[in-house]
């Protein structure tokens, strides 16, 4: 019953320690995975409530609810919390729970470090969120924190922001090292690399991306810190530095970061679609290679976020072509998923619904991404709501739907109960409608010329913004339904068999549901 989070109450399972200290000191991958998942959900609601403030202010033109200064803090915090607090920890949580189960390992390779990397996160986000209440306000320079707005012109709280980013970075790096060590060294006998489930593969690649770019982000904020407090001029033109350099360093981290948030979802969906199509995944090998090429390409496309800063023509062309190339491996993935469904024997339970929506909506986000890659056209899209629509299409139905799909898919394994399918379907449809209502109109206002990160707008954008806000409120409110479904599932429900999905494949379904506190103490035999 390791997924139960009733602090301090007794627990009938044998194995874990009793009481609160179980959670504080645990080195069990399932406990830590559970904590990651709950933490990420809490951050999802917090970041989401900030999105609600933003959408409420944008419901109508004019300034009604918040002042521009606070609005900027909301957009900044929404971005930071969703990226670093909701999506990334959710995937680390899934990795903690599922990777040992999928590769037949007894636990993660470095259990004590695992505990530490989790507990850094509440500290980091506690500090980050507390800056909102400081004099001068919290970070207000956007989640991309471009210098000099985030250095010379930043509120005092920027120092705490930098420290929080350092903590998150350390946490992610330790998490990633743990994942790599687990996957490379703890696989059960016979589990060769090319037999690993795709979720494990995509996480292995993600972990390498994290190890490669989180230190660059750390370097970036360290340079900011030195500029602010120690009189250096990395990013300050006045001292011979260069504000554009900041953007290069940031996006060198930032673009791989985007894939860090989507690759694990690719992996999860690649397990879920075959399970519900009752047909093996089409093109396993090409999926692995496609993931690796996406990861590689992510290192050479960063300047497509900076087409308007005045890069020389040749640079602009290079980054345009490189970016367009990403469409190829991504296309391969989409075609593989569709072919997996083709001539299957499909049923549409909640995980499958979310996975299918993932494929469709992520592809739409991919199309707008392709459009954004075309440099001359990007001059018209850049920093408008079209970009906001684009990245919400790849992140909400991409990362978030991927997480929902995974959660429904593995909830029976975690809790030992089946979730309420009717409510879950309701959750899906409400999320699906709300999400499209919220983000689809943003394409139109963006193309009509509405810049992003503005608290007020011209009347021509009013109707679509109102629709967006209604959609956002729907989507936001629906997530409480998810909370209810999960709690209901933990507390009871139809007992789940070891393998609740008849088409599912993988070692995780060979252990009973709920998964015992200790699994695979003796490694299983993999054919």
């Amino acid at each position, binding site marked *: 019953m390791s997924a139960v989070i009733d602090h301090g109450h007794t627990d009938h399972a044998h194995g874990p320690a009793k009481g609160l200290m179980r959670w504080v000191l645990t080195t069990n991958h399932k406990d830590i995975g559970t904590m990651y998942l709950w933490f990420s959900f809490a951050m999802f609601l917090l970041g989401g409530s900030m999105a609600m403030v933003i959408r409420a202010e944008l419901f109508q033109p004019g300034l009604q609810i918040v002042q521009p200064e606070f609005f900027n803090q909301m957009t900044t915090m929404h971005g930071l919390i969703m990226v670093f607090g909701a999506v990334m920890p959710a995937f680390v949580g899934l990795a903690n729970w599922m990777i040992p189960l999928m590769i037949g390992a007894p636990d993660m*390779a*470095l259990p004590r470090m695992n505990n530490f990397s989790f507990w850094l996160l509440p500290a980091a986000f506690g500090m980050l969120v507390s800056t909102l209440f400081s004099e001068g306000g919290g970070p207000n320079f956007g989640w991309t924190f471009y210098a000099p707005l985030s250095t010379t012109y930043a509120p005092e709280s920027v120092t705490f922001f930098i420290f929080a980013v350092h903590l998150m970075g350390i946490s992610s*790096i330790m998490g990633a*090292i743990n994942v*790599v*060590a687990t996957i*490379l*060294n*703890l*696989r*059960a*006998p016979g589990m*060769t*690399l090319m037999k690993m489930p795709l979720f494990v593969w995509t996480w292995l690649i993600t972990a390498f991306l994290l*190890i*490669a*770019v*989180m*230190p*660059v*982000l*750390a*370097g*970036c904020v*360290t*340079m900011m810190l030195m500029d602010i407090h120690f*009189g250096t001029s*990395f990013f300050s*033109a*006045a*001292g*011979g530095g*260069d504000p*554009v*350099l900041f953007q*290069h*360093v940031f996006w*060198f981290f930032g673009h791989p970061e985007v894939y860090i948030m989507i690759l694990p979802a690719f992996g999860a969906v690649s397990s879920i679609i075959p399970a519900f199509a009752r047909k093996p995944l089409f093109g396993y090998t090409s999926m692995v290679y496609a993931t690796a090429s996406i990861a590689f390409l992510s290192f050479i496309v960063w300047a497509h976020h900076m087409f308007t800063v*005045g*890069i*020389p*023509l*040749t*640079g602009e062309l290079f980054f345009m072509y490189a970016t367009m190339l990403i469409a190829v491996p991504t296309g391969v993935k989409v075609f593989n998923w569709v072919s997996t469904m083709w001539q299957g024997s499909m049923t549409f339970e909640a995980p499958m619904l979310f996975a299918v929506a993932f494929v469709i909506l992520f592809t739409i986000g991919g199309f707008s991404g392709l459009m954004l890659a075309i440099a001359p056209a990007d001059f018209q899209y850049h920093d408008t709501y079209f970009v906001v629509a684009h990245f919400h299409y790849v992140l909400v139905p991409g990362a978030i739907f991927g997480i929902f799909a995974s959660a429904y898919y593995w909830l029976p394994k975690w809790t030992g109960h089946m979730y309420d399918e009717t409510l879950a379907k309701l959750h899906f449809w409400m999320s699906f409608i709300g999400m499209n209502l919220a983000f689809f109109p943003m394409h139109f206002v963006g193309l009509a010329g509405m810049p992003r990160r503005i608290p007020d707008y011209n009347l021509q954008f009013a109707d679509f913004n109102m629709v967006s806000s209604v959609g956002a409120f729907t989507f936001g409110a629906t997530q409480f339904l998810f909370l209810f479904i999960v709690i209901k599932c933990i507390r009871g429900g139809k007992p789940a068999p070891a393998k609740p999905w008849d088409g599912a494949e993988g070692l995780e379904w060979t252990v009973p549901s709920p998964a015992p506190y200790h699994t695979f103490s003796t*490694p299983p035999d993999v054919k």
Partner: protein
Amino acid sequence: MAQGMSTRQLIQRLLLLVLVMFGFGFALVPIYEVMCQAFGINGKTAGAYQGEQTVDEARQVRVQFLATNAADMVWEFQPLADEVAVHPGAVSEMRFVAFNPTDKPMTAQAIPSVAPSKAAAFFHKTECFCFTQQVLQPGERIEMPVRFIVDRDLPADVRHLTLAYTLFDITARKPPVPVAGR
């Protein structure tokens, strides 16, 4: 078990990779500097002139001068002329006037930038007030020279160059020494 190396070795390598990438973040600074110099990214001007020291009389290029103050900079700052016509290969000079209207000594730093960026790599300054910081006493007015050569290899389609300076107040960072002059 696919046992390539022990967990300990693996972690050591991964940590090394982390350190290398952290260093790489900082290494991007000089790398970027070199790239800028080489390709004129962001209007960073080229280094010393190494081309042929002969003047291309047949060709004329307009060089335009801009002087901009950062928002909190109170000095008066402008070029003596808006633009000059120069021959590639020839050394030209332009003087900028700076005046400190306040009652305090102040330090300033001028930051140059050349447009179009593809021409920046062909613009060489042999002497420039932007190489050093300027200290002006209260009410002091000076003329500051910049000497430059436009490269003979300047792409043929560039007939028009802009040299822009932005003047920043760095008094807080580099307090002026109470002795007048530099």
